């Protein structure tokens, strides 16, 4: 098969075949990252703008490197240095950027639906680098890529995701992605961080970490925002770490060969105990490494092929 998407806005509307095609494509690009000269001319002459309305080091750098290794010209625009402070609307900013004829805009925005909004209004391709609490497709794809690398196949695995489910776009994209690839998803977090109806997305919800990770093949820990401390969501980071941190010997509940994942950046001693953060089951740096290959694949696929329809 082939897959020529105009945009990558989320995982929800992708099929399992399309996801596998992206992962297979990423497999081919992965080799470039280990070469001495880490560059191919595939996107020569293409301009990619990384439009980041939220601070992000990892995702932005990963997309930037991905674009550069494909020989595209990549430009970063971050909200702090942009017109946002001048009160320009998203549409106006985007149209100004479009007037410079980029081929792809990679956007991170704090409003759910912002990437859809952009895609509805611009001619160029839009890749979602995280929109509000909605989706973060490249993260879910690199997670799937990493799981596939370690487990061979995703089909039949049990994946436990622990943390602030409500505010996590990573969770939503991962639920879609893992379900489509045949895994079972379990979630756990304090009741204040489990959104209404999340089980309808295709997952089983637990209110304690232990039950969620029992016999799991993959344990994915989410970052807890320290700013949430003292809000009605959690009383303290200390208590959070005690009940929902992956520490001590809690990993013994999971399968022996289970892997530990985290979208980063990690809070040592909060959601991840240091022994686990530095332990052999941890594949967090693989995730980061694979992120570049997956994003190369996404940029390549949206840039290539005839776009027969513009949705």
């Amino acid at each position, binding site marked *: 098969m082939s897959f020529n998407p105009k945009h990558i806005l989320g995982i929800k509307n992708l099929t399992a075949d399309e996801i596998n095609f992206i992962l297979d494509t990423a497999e081919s690009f992965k080799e470039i990252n280990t070469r001495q000269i880490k560059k191919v001319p595939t996107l020569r002459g293409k301009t990619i703008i990384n439009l980041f309305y939220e601070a992000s080091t990892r995702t932005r750098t990963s997309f930037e490197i991905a674009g550069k290794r494909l020989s595209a010209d990549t430009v970063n625009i971050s909200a702090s240095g942009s017109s946002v402070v001048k009160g320009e609307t998203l549409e106006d900013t985007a149209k100004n950027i479009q007037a410079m004829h980029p081929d792809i805009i990679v956007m991170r925005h704090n409003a759910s639906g912002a990437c859809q909004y952009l895609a509805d209004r611009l001619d160029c391709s839009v890749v979602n680098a995280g929109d509000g609490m909605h989706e973060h497709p490249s993260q879910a794809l690199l997670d799937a890529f990493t799981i596939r690398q370690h487990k061979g196949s995703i089909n039949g695995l049990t994946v436990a995701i622990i943390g602030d489910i409500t505010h996590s776009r990573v969770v939503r994209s991962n639920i879609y992605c893992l379900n489509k690839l045949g895994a079972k998803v379990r979630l756990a977090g304090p009741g204040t961080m489990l959104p209404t109806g999340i089980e309808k997305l295709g997952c089983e919800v637990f209110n304690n970490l232990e039950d969620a990770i029992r016999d799991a093949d993959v344990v994915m820990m989410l970052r807890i925002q320290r700013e949430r401390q003292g809000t009605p969501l959690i009383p303290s980071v200390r208590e959070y770490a005690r009940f929902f941190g992956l520490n001590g010997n809690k990993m013994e509940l999971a399968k022996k060969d289970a892997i530990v994942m985290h979208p980063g950046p990690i809070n040592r001693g909060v959601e991840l105990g240091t022994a686990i953060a530095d332990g052999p089951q941890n594949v967090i740096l693989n995730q980061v490494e694979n992120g570049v290959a997956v994003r190369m694949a996404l940029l390549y696929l949206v840039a*290539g092929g005839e776009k027969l329809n513009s949705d």
Partner: protein
Amino acid sequence: MAVEIIEILDSDGVDRAITRIAHEILEKNAGVDDLLLIGIRTGGAYLATQLQQKITNIEGKDVSTGIIDVTMYRDDLESRNNLEVGHSCIHVPVTDKKVILVDDVLFTGRTIRAALEAVIALGRPQNIQLAILVDRGHRELPIRPDYIGRNIPTAQNEQIKVDFDDQNVPQAVHLLRT
């Protein structure tokens, strides 16, 4: 539309052509030292395997062989309907090697241009040579093969098809006319 199929080479013909190319390569390069066969995915990769076997049979020495996928180096990104990217698989460094690029059909030369770039991206070979089973003409770039199985002048509306069996051994070359 009716398609007329004309057989250009049968399996023996293909085999003879590959055998001849093997001899020519050995002759020109004075043996297998520093030789590296790189087949262009997918037809060229199959032929490279055939050539490798011939050369081993003739010389009694193994010759390094790799596969290259040129998709990332092509110049027609927007107009392609198939975006599949294959793996490249070359386990020895190309620097200072005598690289023999192998492909089944030479047409416009654009694939070879992409392959040249792909090889050079991996290092600095001593030289790069080109072995082709069928040259059908219509070059769009200044590219000339060093080893040719068969020259078949064709019209634009004709196609050349190399058939492989399920062991990826070439069985025949056909000309398709519509």
